[in-house]
């Protein structure tokens, strides 16, 4: 009763329901409210889940679209002449002799011969960057595998370089070809030639050049607008200025600006005339799309274009300078300007030509799963990091599981409840919240500097991650022990089991699934941890697959970090692919946690 009237004999009318039906009405009203609240709450939950799911979908889509192509590597089907002199210097076909052979020369020679129109050192240098640096090693390994190949001409798949690989995966520049609708006649087969068409076949190219011109006009018009604004401002100042000198200055400035406007306007008019008049040829710059004419079995790069005539440079020489019929020749477009891509027009045409000739072989990228890191994206793999992760997690598991379980058991079952155990408990809970890089610093200070353990080693990484995982395992372990019904303990003790027997025979087996779940989650956390490992040198660039606990190694997340930090574009897909592998590991581990729980969970 909130009413404060002192009269107690006649209770004031507080609106309290007086009859059951009134009360029931109120209940009905409150029910409606409660259901509405419940509905609202459920909706919030659904929205939250929807958001979370959509984030996951976005994340996975992004990673998969970026990363799936890393599992494929483009290979060139190279026909190499394995002449005995270079390949087998001692002439006895022994592995030592074959290993000493010179493969680079024959590989590169074969490569340059495969490409069309490689002439001179400049071309060779340009071509070289398309092939993987390890191509000759591939050839050597093939010869070592099959010494019979010596002296024969073998066809071997060798890797393309990373830029070429990206091109073939359609991630750098697209080559769009369109059959032309008129006949054309080249003026020659080599060098700089002119191709004349009997119709306006090259208007599209000219348009591209005109876009460039329009950009120029835009720039000029911006300038003019700027001048005009300044003139307006000066004139306003002029109308207010009283000092004669100042007025003269202002008038001068206005005059200069007006002149500039006149010049620019003239320029604009000139360019507009060029755009309007389709007769003249316009030059294509490196900032515009590239155009290539495929005619009479050759390829010509367009340098300047008019509606029915182009001037160009021959990339691949033509068979003849005869007239090409309508539809038998093509105009190819590279929409991305040459200045904006890593591959030059010539390199693109080489690659395109190889693909046309069926020498491209897309294979599953085994290197990615079998080799260590490399500066060359096409030679980089995650196996080194995966093995490093494996060794590191082994150490973590071997240390943290027994220590964690024993700590949990002692604290939960045996420790006296006093200030000391409270302190330990608080500290363990706090440790779970310590930023992981701090553990890295501790590892650096203690394990490396005091104990003198090796740098970059899985042993130390595992020890640092143990520090990080222990609180998780201990907390999960204690929760699991707490969840074991006390009746089980009582039953065992009542049977005359000692405390250790009750613990090991009855309580621990029941708590084990929970403890294992906690451990696996802790391990999954450790698997994804980067920061503490940076501090102990596991961020180093390590090419070799680690062979033991003290070998220099890196781990999967650090590998991802290193790749993400690399400038080469080909590492983008490697990064995403490595993330996919890491996620696959994590999902497997979490799945294992669920299965372990299901498998060992017992009803009581």
């Amino acid at each position, binding site marked *: 009763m909130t009413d404060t009237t002192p009269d107690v004999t006649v209770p004031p009318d507080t609106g309290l329901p007086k009859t059951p039906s009134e009360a029931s009405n109120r209940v009905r009203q409150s029910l409606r409210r409660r259901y509405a609240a419940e509905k609202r709450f459920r909706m919030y939950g659904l929205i939250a889940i929807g958001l979370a799911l959509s984030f996951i979908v976005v994340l996975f889509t992004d990673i998969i679209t970026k990363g799936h192509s890393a599992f494929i590597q483009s290979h060139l089907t190279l026909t190499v002449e394995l002449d005995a002199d270079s390949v087998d210097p001692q002439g006895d076909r022994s592995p030592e002799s074959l290993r000493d052979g010179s493969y680079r020369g024959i590989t590169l020679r074969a490569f340059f011969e495969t490409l069309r129109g490689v002439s001179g050192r400049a071309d060779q240098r340009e071509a070289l960057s398309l092939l993987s640096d390890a191509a000759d090693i591939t050839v050597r390994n093939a010869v070592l595998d099959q010494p019979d190949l010596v002296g024969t001409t073998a066809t071997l798949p060798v890797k393309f370089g990373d830029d070429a690989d990206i091109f073939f995966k359609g991630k750098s520049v697209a080559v769009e070809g369109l059959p032309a609708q008129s006949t054309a006649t080249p003026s020659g087969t080599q060098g700089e030639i002119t191709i004349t068409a009997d119709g306006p076949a090259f208007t599209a190219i000219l348009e591209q050049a005109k876009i460039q011109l329009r950009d120029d006009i835009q720039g000029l018009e911006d300038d003019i607008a700027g001048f005009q604004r300044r003139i307006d401002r000066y004139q306003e100042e002029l109308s207010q200025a009283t000092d004669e000198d100042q007025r003269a200055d202002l008038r001068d400035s206005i005059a200069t600006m007006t002149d500039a406007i006149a010049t620019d306007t003239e320029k604009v008019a000139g360019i507009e005339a060029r755009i309007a008049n389709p007769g003249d040829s316009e030059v294509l710059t490196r900032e515009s799309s590239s155009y290539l004419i495929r005619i009479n079995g050759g390829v010509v790069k367009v340098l300047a274009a008019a509606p029915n005539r182009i001037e160009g440079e021959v990339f691949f020489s033509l068979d003849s300078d005869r007239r090409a019929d309508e539809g038998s020749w093509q105009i190819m477009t590279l929409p991305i300007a040459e200045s904006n891509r890593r591959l030059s027009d010539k390199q693109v045409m080489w690659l395109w030509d190889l693909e046309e000739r069926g020498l491209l072989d897309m294979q599953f990228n085994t290197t990615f799963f079998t080799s260590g890191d490399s500066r060359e994206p096409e030679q980089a793999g995650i196996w080194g990091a995966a093995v490093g992760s494996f060794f590191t997690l082994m150490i973590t598991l071997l240390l943290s599981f027994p220590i964690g379980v024993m700590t949990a058991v002692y604290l939960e079952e045996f420790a*006296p*409840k006093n200030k000391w155990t409270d302190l330990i408990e608080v500290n363990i809970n706090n440790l779970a919240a310590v930023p992981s890089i701090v553990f890295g610093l501790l590892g650096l200070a203690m394990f490396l500097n005091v104990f003198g353990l090796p740098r970059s080693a899985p042993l130390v990484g595992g020890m640092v991650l143990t520090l990080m995982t222990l609180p998780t395992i201990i907390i999960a372990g204690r929760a699991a022990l707490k969840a074991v*019904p006390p*009746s*089980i*303990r*009582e*039953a*065992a*003790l*009542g*049977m*005359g*089991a*000692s405390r250790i*027997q009750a613990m090991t*025979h*009855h309580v621990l087996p*029941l708590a084990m699934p929970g403890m294992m779940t906690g451990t696996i989650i802790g391990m999954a956390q450790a698997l994804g941890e980067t920061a503490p490992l940076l501090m102990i040198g596991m961020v180093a660039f390590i090419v070799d697959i680690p062979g033991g606990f003290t070998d220099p190694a890196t781990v999967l997340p650090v590998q991802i970090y290193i790749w993400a930090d690399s400038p080469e574009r080909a590492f983008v897909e490697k990064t995403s692919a490595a993330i996919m592998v890491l996620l696959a590991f994590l999902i497997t581990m979490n799945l294992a946690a669920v299965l372990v729980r299901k498998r060992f969970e*017992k*009803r*009581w």
Partner: protein
Amino acid sequence: MSEKGENVMDQPNKSDSSADLAKNSTVAPKPSAPQAEGTGRTKMSAKGVDVFYGDKQALFDVDIDIMENRVTALIGPSGCGKSTFLRCLNRMNDVVEICKVTGDIRMEGDDIYDPRIDVVHLRARVGMVFQKPNPFPKSIYENVAYGPKIHGITRNKVEADELVEGSLRRAGLWEEVKDRLDQPGTSLSGGQQQRLCIARAIAVQPEVILMDEPCSALDPIATARIEDLIHELRENFTIVIVTHSMSQAARVSQRTAFFHLGKLVEYDETETIFMNPSDDRTQGYITGRFG
């Protein structure tokens, strides 16, 4: 963390003295009577037992003699300390950190709170059955075989098989479970689980079995079976049972102790307690005036 009782006396060999010391009006013990008849040799005796939970005193100066081969029922309203007293008899209170037991509790003259007494051995001699059936989440066989195994009573599979069968038979469970000994004990019904717990307790061949409201979670039919079982077990074991049901106390026990507010109010032959109680509170409780 075993909390040692502060013993007033420390005489390990005084087998009958505690019976003489019993001050409540009990039936005079007849030490000469044959054991099999269970005519009242004192098996366990408690004298001046106080129990504290932290600062709170739960039992005040309890004196009881438990007679051999008899069923002793502990009755009283909730929170009167009867379960607490029961758990003192096999030192199950040791597990409770804040619990402190003082006074003198003897089993055949040996002070069970003596530091020299091994609590594991004590619990092998004084078995316990709990209020809620609590079989181990293991097979029926393992449930029964576990105790004998850890105590070294059975040394091989043949012995274990024999003992498991014997114990299950005595608990009246054998016929029901003999074909599924490998199934989890938790798959049985509540009454069966409780009988399994009894089988588990008697497999260790204790001298005394403590039962803490063994039927409170069971239906009347299962309760009746357990009560029959208690009757049979009395021939071989000394049984102390805590019960809320006065009719159960009347049915199964020969002697009854009535607890109230942590004090032992009256302890006598069951018949006397129910027909002719000497204390008003006992009278009030059994006639249902409070409790």
